[in-house]
């Protein structure tokens, strides 16, 4: 045996080490892999539970939980969804929420981009001061605005309208929008700006033709954030939209009899999830970028 060992070439030793090392590495990683698979599945269970519950007839769900579908797949039914699609108030609520989310996203992006450009590239006295104010407003809890806006909206006669909700979301989305876009715009190469100015482009033209297209990645991140916020909002909707009834308010009004209304609550909640989830999966990259820009900075 000793002679054999001596006869083995260094390369062979190396190869054998690699194989052994590989096996060791795979074995060493097995616990981590196993743990992460378990955690990952665990993380999906609640959402899966909601989906499968929404696909069970209420009588079946009264008897056993959603996992009965695994042993009796024939129990899957779309009857709850059909009922929701026939439920006019819920469908109207979805439309209302869509309107609020779309305009509540576009408006702050536009207003925020204008201001962001001014903070990044225009010179005016008190610029840094004003930007400090924007940063301060970033964390003002919206609870601070609920009572005065409730009164003001009533005075103005726009209480409980889509408009009142859009404007509120716009205002509270603005500090983050300005902050994010200003930080992004400032990174646009100075040469590009100078060149455009020398060519005689007006500031408005520069903003529309240069800044907005170049700022698209940041605008996309911002848009996704703002869309998810406005779509998912409950507090503002409950305060200013009781009759306007965005989808969260419509579902909320069913919660009092949770047990009896699961066949309506579960599918309606799942439908209200699908759109933000689709947005999230379609633009995941921008979402993460926005998250990092917003928090790490």
């Amino acid at each position, binding site marked *: 045996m000793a002679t054999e060992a001596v006869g083995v070439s260094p390369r062979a030793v190396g190869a054998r080490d690699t194989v052994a090392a590989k096996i060791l590495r795979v074995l060493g990683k097995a616990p981590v892999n196993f743990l992460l698979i378990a955690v*990952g599945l665990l993380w999906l269970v609640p959402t899966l*539970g909601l989906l499968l519950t929404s696909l069970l007839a209420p009588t079946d769900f009264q008897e056993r939980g959603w996992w009965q579908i695994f042993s009796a797949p024939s129990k899957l039914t779309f009857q709850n969804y059909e009922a929701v699609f026939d439920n006019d108030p819920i469908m109207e609520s979805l439309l209302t929420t869509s309107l609020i989310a779309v305009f509540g996203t576009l408006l702050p992006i536009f207003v925020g981009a204008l201001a962001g450009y001014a903070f990044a*590239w225009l010179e005016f006295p008190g610029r840094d001061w004003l930007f400090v104010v924007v940063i301060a407003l970033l964390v003002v809890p919206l609870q*601070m*605005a609920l*009572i005065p806006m409730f009164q003001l909206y009533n005075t103005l006669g726009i209480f409980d309208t889509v408009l009142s909700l859009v404007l509120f979301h716009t205002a509270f989305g603005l500090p983050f929008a300005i902050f994010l876009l200003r930080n992004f715009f400032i990174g646009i190469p100075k040469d590009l700006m100078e060149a455009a100015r020398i060519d005689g482009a007006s500031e408005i033209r520069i903003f529309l033709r240069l800044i907005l297209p170049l700022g698209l990645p940041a605008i996309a991140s911002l848009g996704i954030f703002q869309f998810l916020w406005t779509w998912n909002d409950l507090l503002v909707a409950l305060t200013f939209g009781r009759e306007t009834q965005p989808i969260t308010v419509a579902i909320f009004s069913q919660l009092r009899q949770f047990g009896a209304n699961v066949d309506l609550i579960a599918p309606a909640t799942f439908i*209200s999830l699908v759109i933000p989830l689709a947005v999230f999966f379609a633009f995941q990259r921008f979402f*993460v970028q926005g998250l990092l820009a917003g928090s790490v900075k």
Partner: protein
Amino acid sequence: MSGASVTAEPPVKGAPPGGPEPGAWRKYALTAGFLAPAVLFLGIWIVYPTIRTIYRSFFDRSGDSFVWFDNYAEIFTSDILFTAVKNNAIWILVVPAFVTAIGLIFAVLTERVSWAVAFKTAVFMPMAISAFAAGITWRIVYIEEPERGALNAGIASFRDAFSPPGVLPDAAPSTENIEGTPDAGLTLAEPVQPGETVQLGLTRISTDEIPEGAVQAVAPEPVEGGIAGVVWRDFRPGGGEPGQLEQEELGLPGVTVQLRTEQGETVQEAATEANGTFVFEDVEAGQYQVAIGAQTFAAPFGGVTWLGERLVTPAILIAYIWIWAGFSMVVIAAGLAAIPRDVLEAARTDGATEWQVFRRVTVPLLGPVLTVVFITMLINVLKVFDIVIALAPGSVQDDATVLALSMWRTAFAGANNFGVGSAIAVFIFVLVIPVLLLNIRRFRREV
């Protein structure tokens, strides 16, 4: 976002050395045009209401009389409002720390697997869902009956593996010659000797509780040197005579019967047959007691009341951490990716163990990122609202309440007390002011 890390540029066109250059007013007008919409929105919807809310918080419910700090005192003296303060304190102590720690663990672990993207997507997904929808999702998880609620079903299957439920959880003796409680086991009052037979009648067994395979009960035949007996359902359609084994009365199979000495020590155990009979063989002469073991009556797991008064806050905390762990993981993972590999390699080459590398190199280098996650969570927790209102059933909302929820309930849901509501809002605002100052300092340093 590499652009964001660039420090603020000096103004493009240097400030003119002399007085205002011609056309300067035009430039300012242009700037004003760019800023006006934002200033309008921020002024009307955030700055004005903030001042107004602070002002309003010093007036009573009707808004007519100035009450100094009475509304603030109310926060700490009213039971429900003070519960909100206490609960929010729990949130502050638990959530930022847990979310940061879990995110750190996930971020470090995902670096070691090849399918990190799939894992991150699964954990991050709840971030896209509204906290309100997440609350409803978890309400289904937390349903109390183990047959319907996933969490209690999981606990039940664990529990049943270690202490299976009894075959007759609700049964009771049919006559007074059986003593004891179901918890300690039911014992036949009369002592028995080898060669005798015993009959143990039980009632309060509903039709669907009858063990599977039960057949007509049979009176036991005496066994020489042993003790034979029967356990049966002492009831038949129409009633029957208690203590009498009659036609149509069923034996109870699967019941554990114990033979005990007079000191109460169990010497033999037997299980009943389909007709309810059992036999203890080769019993030494002497006086014995016959008992039905307590395990026969063990109640099945009824489910933990997650959304009851006592556990509702921890239950909501779990759901909330479920939402935010993904955020923490993604931000920390980005920070982790920015750590130069050679720093870690150098530590490993110097003989540091993986744990030491993690503890002494990775975590200190991640410090700023961990702080950001922690602070972000701190602010989020102060404003938490949706998930509490969605997850806590109406009956326990007073026990689960937090500042933002009690603010809304005080001002809008029936009570309509704008004075106290404003005070709670200001209280939340005061709590976030340190973060506000921190943000400003960070920006100032950057400029």
